[in-house]
């Protein structure tokens, strides 16, 4: 199967990789958030309810990361190789956190002892927080720019990745996932826990809005290239507007008791954020700083047009199927979560 010459496959894959990572943020975002919120629960029953709210879906959500990583490897091998080897220790920590978290979900409720459950609860919450934070730090570095040499290799250090702007994005990501997770908990629970989770939404939204404001200001002041495209194409400001309106809409929907719409608003806000991120980055995938000429782009770091074409065919066949059955699984497991003997 061949695609017409006017179709810019590199741009298509830039978008598709973005879509996969956005899907990951939307889905694993809420279960990482639920994990972090675990710290604020008081009773064993509430903790189990929260675990079971994400029980049937969390590993499917994590598959988006696997597929996103795979697509990056496939479409932009140079970016994959440079970023993963350059951010070595950060990514190893991310893996350790993700694994520990997965193990904790599986094993927490298998034994009744208090110390056993507490140990895994801490592991679950800690792993979720650390994963969210590290994902944010990675985004922060990609936005800020990292030193790349002329052979496309990372030329910085681990500690160099932990500059204030990256840390700020780490915290903002944690806040975003906390908010997203709190809304999900409200959506999936009832009674006491739901009342508690409603209070979480108020607090996490405030936390997120503060982080968001600081990040926006810091970006405009110190990372002007991340606002360049919107500045020169004012109509793109509509994306930022959608983003802000969607965030503002969340408390409104919660107030009216329309929890599902609040969740959708949160999703729309995240999609708009990722769209802005993508718009400002394009065509760069990794911005090189200070040597801008060494940046890795969707054009110089990509696989051959033939591979991009084959992968597009695979994606066109596979993605609609994936979306269809993901949607039907969420449909089958719709409604409030109840505990039974198969529960975590």
């Amino acid at each position: 199967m061949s695609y017409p010459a006017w179709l810019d496959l590199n741009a298509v894959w830039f978008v598709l990789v973005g879509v996969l990572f956005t899907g990951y943020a939307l889905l694993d975002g809420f279960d990482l958030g639920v994990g972090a919120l675990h710290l604020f629960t008081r009773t064993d029953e509430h903790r189990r309810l929260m675990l079971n709210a994400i029980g049937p879906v969390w590993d499917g959500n994590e598959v988006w990361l696997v597929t996103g990583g795979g697509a990056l490897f496939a479409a932009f091998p140079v970016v994959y190789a440079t970023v993963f080897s350059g951010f070595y220790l950060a990514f190893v920590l991310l893996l350790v956190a993700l694994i520990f978290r997965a193990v904790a979900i599986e094993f927490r409720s298998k034994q009744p002892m208090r110390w056993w459950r507490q140990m895994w609860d801490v592991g679950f919450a800690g792993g979720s927080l650390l994963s969210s934070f590290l994902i944010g730090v990675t985004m922060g570095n990609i936005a800020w720019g990292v030193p790349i040499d002329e052979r496309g290799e990372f030329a910085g250090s681990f500690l160099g990745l932990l500059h204030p702007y990256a840390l700020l994005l780490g915290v903002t990501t944690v806040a975003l996932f906390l908010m997203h997770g709190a809304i999900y908990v409200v959506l999936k629970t009832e009674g006491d826990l739901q009342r508690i989770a409603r209070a979480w939404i108020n607090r996490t939204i405030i936390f997120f809005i503060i982080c968001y404001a600081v990040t926006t200001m810091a970006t405009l002041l110190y990372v002007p290239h991340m606002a360049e495209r919107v500045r020169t194409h004012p109509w793109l400001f509509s994306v930022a507007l959608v983003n802000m309106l969607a965030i503002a809409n969340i408390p409104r929907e919660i107030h009216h008791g329309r929890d599902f719409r609040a969740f959708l608003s949160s999703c729309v806000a995240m999609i708009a954020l990722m769209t802005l991120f993508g718009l400002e980055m394009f065509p760069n995938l990794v911005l090189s700083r200070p040597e801008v000429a060494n940046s890795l782009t969707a054009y110089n770091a990509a696989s051959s047009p033939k591979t991009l074409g084959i992968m597009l065919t695979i994606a066109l066949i596979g993605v609609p199927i994936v979306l269809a059955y993901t949607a039907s699984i969420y449909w089958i497991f719709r409604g409030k979560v109840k505990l039974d003997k198969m529960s975590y």
Partner: protein
Amino acid sequence: MDVLLLSRIQFAFTVAFHYLYPPLSIGLGVCLVIMEGLWLKTGNPVYHQMARFWTRVFALTFAIGVATGIVMEFEFGTNWATYSRFVGDVFGSALAAEGIFAFFLESGFLAILLFGWDKVGRKLHYFATWMVCLGAHFSAIWIVVANSWMQTPAGYQLETTAYGPRAVITDFWAMVFNPSSMDRLFHVLCGAWQAGAFLVVSVSAYYLLRRRHTAFAQASMKVGLGVALVASLLQLVSGHSSAGVVARHQPAKLAAFEGLYETRTNAPLVLAGWVDEANEEVRFNLEIPGLLSWLVHGDVAAPVKGLREFAPEDRPPVNLTFQLYHLMVGIGFGLIAVAGLGSYACWRGRLFDRRGLLWVLVFAVLGPQVANQAGWFATEIGRQPWIVYGLLRTSDGLSATVTAEMVLTSLILFTVLYALLFAVFVYLLNDKIQHGPDAADLEPRGKLAIPGRS
């Protein structure tokens, strides 16, 4: 230690640990399809109980498989960046297919399998069981295709770029059906079916010895033994044809498998021995003259290439490869014997009170695991010093920016984490086995209780 050795140790360790689990998922997947199929066909509630019990075991292996699988995907980039740039274009499509077709299928439908017993009807649940089994198999397909391309590259051309050399795909199907991929896939799948089936056999034998859950254990044993016997016999066929592919396309590896230094006709098949690499000979050898020539070429007079045809820097470590290969083959024959004896006794109706044989079956679960590990180590060490056979040396595939200290740090972290993971796995598996099948599972509930409704 240098970064190359540490990176190799870390990759070997993490992939070996990971590979304990996917074969169990694949093999158990097949057993689940059979068990639930038997329930739907016969309506016998024991089969329903079996399907539910083994689904719980499946979920355990799957969870650890996913968690440790993410590490593998990251490690290509973190530790083998140069290799990733080299193979990205070729691997790309296989990996994309793996993610989209296999992982989503498996994890999505597993949710229905595990949590959906009371929420969906019989037909949809059985469909989900099939999809999980299929997803597990798909995941093997794409990763084995990618690995086979590293053994016998095809359908590509080499290019130089600003970031170093790379292989670029020229023919997708030639890449997918490279000379070794289908034989190796079949070989891997047989090994996986054995792993899953012998787990079922082992647990069932344990129950029979303890005289617990007898009806459940007898029915599970029959399904397990059936799959184990078929898989073990197929493995013999696939092993032979895989070795033939190695002989044709990776002669240095075959020579290492057999400890053959000199190219010769009437080449012997060495059954056991110790390779003295300094003097280039096999000591304490027990061999059958001419059999290797006959197995490879169908003719005792045909020559088989020896290691001296290759420059010393192009040879794999010989004795290690030799021993691992022979361990795998030995266990393979052992498993045929065990599965054959078990099936025969079972068919004659004598198995359930032959305690000696049952004990053998309990420990047989280790056989496929050891053979799978030994086989992978043999094939990967046998490919050395190449990471992509004939194209890229392992030492040239490393990440330029990663230091030995960094790899040592991550290796320690992974070791601690995996030790914990393994302890918890063994603990929980034992817990499930001690708990046994649930008597309540004899009665299907919810929509599943309604026969013939979907």
